[in-house]
């Protein structure tokens, strides 16, 4: 018997779903229990222990990557901090010009350290996640040009959550370099910030300033946090069990089977997949936020009613917020504010005006963001296409802004009217659904084929002969739950916290709501003995 099998390393893959019973009935109660009985000053260590235990269970020996990330980022950041101290000493008593030279010298050194950090971490991801994709494409090029070389396609085991914890780690070191935060000399605090167990599988991608101190200054568990956290997890379970997993069969049948479906069915499946993805991912985020709340930690929200967005640009500020913010802060801004881009912007401002002038540099940055965004989701051309699709949509939106404004003014169209806003939302939703069709399809070719079907084949199928794995009862229950979620979303959009409002209601009303939600999940949820649960979609990224 190996040490691994003794310690259950990597045996807890089902824990990647926060709605698995092993998580809800074992890991979560154990974690809460251990945390609750640990004396206050040791609570932070119990959280750190639980986080590493969790990662050990889901990733086994691949935990070594988490160690590499944590240790390297910790020491590189301290190195930058020391250079800052040395810079101050070196510059003390010097004249302005000499200070400038010293500053430049140290800046170069610090840049080299950040570069080293980026190379280590992005390199690790490139090798583990993308080497097979790159090698396959190189082989295709060789074949196309008749070069008789075939490279062996490498296969590596990738730890779950690497895309998420690496981005957190990089944001930390870049923020230290920028002087936004100071390097943390406490390895434990940094390790907990990177590894906190609810967030390591699917995010959100937190900043050091958002969660590190909260986690380290661990609080007592309160009844309010316990109850609010449990309610949030329950809400997520409703999304996952009753909507996302129930729609999965239909989505799988249309997207994964060889059978061809007519356009209306493809369109319906694309709508269902968009709903499934939102319910799956935002449901998981509810579980993450709820779990964190039980420990008294406020996680940043990753979704803000994205389907109320009026433009694609706005959609990405409301969908997977932490990823968008990461790309904005660590790719978009550095590109647009680079010296070369600033020059281009100021030159083009003079030639093509204040709106279109900055667009050139902005578009280059936008391209980098969306290329990275596509590739971040997976090593396939369909993901790159997905990124480029949104790049083109946002770019078009930026270009068309003044034209639409003029058009509206000329034809006396009020952009503030409810109908106008409703149409904007409708248009955005349609564009998002088309993007998700490519995102879900098994490869770019399959995506294009499905898209062609959707826009050219309008034949209505014989519904009585269709076997999509879903019946009218499933659709009714999905519609009912979506109506509940829409109602909650409208209240949230108006700034009303539903849990706060509910807590002010009489016990009977509150309990009625909770029993209703629990029974909806138990009776109408997609689960059962021998049922293979659907893996959380974002855990594979």
């Amino acid at each position: 018997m190996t040490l691994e099998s003794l310690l259950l390393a990597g045996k807890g893959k089902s824990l990647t779903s926060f709605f698995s019973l092993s998580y809800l009935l074992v890991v979560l109660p154990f974690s809460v229990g251990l945390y609750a009985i640990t004396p206050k000053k040791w609570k932070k260590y119990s959280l750190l222990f639980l986080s590493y235990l969790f990662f050990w269970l889901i990733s086994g020996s691949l935990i070594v990557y988490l160690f590499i990330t944590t240790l390297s980022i910790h020491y590189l950041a301290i190195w930058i901090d020391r250079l800052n101290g040395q810079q101050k000493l070196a510059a003390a008593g010097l004249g302005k010009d000499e200070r400038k030279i010293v500053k430049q010298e140290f800046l170069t050194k610090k840049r080299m350290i950040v570069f080293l950090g980026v190379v280590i971490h992005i390199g690790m991801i490139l090798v583990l996640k993308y080497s097979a994709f790159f090698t396959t494409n190189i082989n295709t090029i060789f074949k196309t040009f008749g070069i008789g070389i075939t490279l062996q396609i490498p296969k590596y085991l990738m730890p779950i959550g690497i895309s998420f914890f690496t981005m957190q780690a990089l944001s930390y070191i870049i923020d230290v370099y920028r002087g936004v935060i100071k390097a943390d000399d406490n390895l434990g605090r940094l390790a907990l910030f990177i590894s906190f167990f609810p967030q390591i599988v699917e995010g959100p991608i937190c900043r050091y300033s958002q969660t590190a101190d909260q986690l380290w200054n661990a609080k007592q568990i309160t009844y309010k946090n316990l109850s609010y956290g449990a309610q949030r997890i329950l809400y997520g379970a409703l999304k996952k069990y009753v909507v996302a997993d129930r729609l999965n069969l239909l989505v799988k049948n249309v997207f994964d089977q060889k059978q061809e479906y007519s356009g209306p069915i493809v369109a319906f499946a694309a709508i269902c997949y968009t709903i499934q993805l939102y319910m799956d991912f935002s449901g998981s985020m509810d579980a993450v936020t709820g779990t964190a709340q039980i420990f008294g930690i406020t996680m940043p929200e990753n979704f803000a009613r994205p389907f109320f967005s009026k433009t694609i640009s706005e959609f990405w500020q409301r969908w997977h917020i932490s990823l968008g913010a990461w790309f904005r802060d660590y790719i978009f801004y550095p590109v647009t504010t680079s010296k070369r881009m600033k020059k281009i912007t100021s030159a083009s401002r003079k030639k093509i005006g204040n709106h279109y002038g900055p667009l050139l540099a902005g578009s280059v940055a936008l391209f980098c963001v969306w290329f990275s965004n596509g590739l971040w989701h997976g090593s396939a051309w369909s993901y790159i296409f997905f990124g480029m699709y949104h790049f083109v949509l946002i770019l078009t939106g930026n270009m068309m802004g003044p034209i639409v404004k003029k058009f509206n003014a000329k034809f006396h169209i009020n952009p503030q009217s409810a109908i106008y806003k409703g149409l904007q939302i409708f248009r955005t939703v349609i564009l998002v659904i088309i993007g998700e069709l490519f995102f879900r399809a098994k490869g770019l070719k399959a995506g294009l084929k499905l898209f062609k079907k959707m826009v050219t084949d309008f034949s209505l199928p014989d519904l009585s002969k269709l076997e999509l794995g879903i019946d009218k009862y499933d659709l009714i229950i999905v519609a009912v739950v979506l109506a509940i979620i829409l109602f909650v979303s409208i209240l949230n959009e108006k700034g009303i916290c539903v849990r706060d409002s509910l807590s002010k209601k009489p016990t009977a009303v509150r309990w009625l709501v909770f029993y209703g939600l629990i029974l909806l999940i138990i009776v109408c949820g997609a689960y059962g003995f021998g049922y293979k649960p659907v893996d959380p979609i974002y855990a594979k990224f």
Partner: protein
Amino acid sequence: MKSFFKHALRILIFSLILFIILFVLSGIMTPKSNNKDDGMYDELANGVLSEPENTLDVLFIGDSEVYSGIMPIKLWKYHGITSYDCSTSGQQLAYSLEFLHNTLISQSPKLVIMETNAFYRKLSFDDSIIYKAGMILPVFKYHDRWKHLHLNDFNINAEIEYNYNDTNKGYKFVGKANPADDSKYMTASKNVKEITSRNKSYIKDIKKFCDQNDTELVFLSTPSTKNWNYEKHNGVQELADELGVKFIDMNTFADDLEIDWSKDTYDQGDHMNYYGATKVTNYLGDYFEELGIFTSHKDDKKYSSWDESTKKFYEMLARHLDPKDYED
């Protein structure tokens, strides 16, 4: 501390009310017959519940290897022994135990023969919890029935009617052949494939339950090139020795059974087809005769329905096969 108890009491009352609601819902969701139309899962296997009280000599439990490989009607026709295939596709051991519990309420078989393929089927933690929850509160098992509830389902005190019976006694006929590659089949090995501790625990529960009901448990592995190997044989043999259970591994003497892998399987060695099942069933019939613990019920009028089932079984064979393939 006062507020702690207040909150704990609140959680307790909340849970208690939830339990009562789920209990009532369980009464509603539980199928009111063993008929598929009334929501019963695995109708063929659950057909065993409609067999008249204490009329079964042998009970076969296990996964698809059982319903593909063992024909109770032939055991009746040639030996006068009554048996039933309580088998379901991908059967988990927890489910095997449930079948045993449900069946032994009204039956007292002398032998329970358990196919061993399921011994190596992993049972996830989630599945084992859902299974146990379903045993206590059937709403967890039959929750999907919300789509097809009838008015009488709301009568939670209604007796469950066991009115569905399968004339093939759980056996599923497949006549086609799809040859298997048996070049690596049962290569000798001393290695042992471990049975998971969770599965071992279920097998021990099954053994204990059989002992309590004065029923002998026998392990059986029907021929399969795809599912079986010597490592698994060794693993089951070890457990059989530990529990004092007889283990018949047909894979170790498939040649003696004259299994022809080019003709006797319908899915490249995974399962027996009708021809393979005939050989397996013939062997079992001879084995039961050798045991000498069964008396033929052929002349007992109480078992006349078995002759009717036999007639229907052979009519079914006649629709699919040449007479030379099924006539004596």
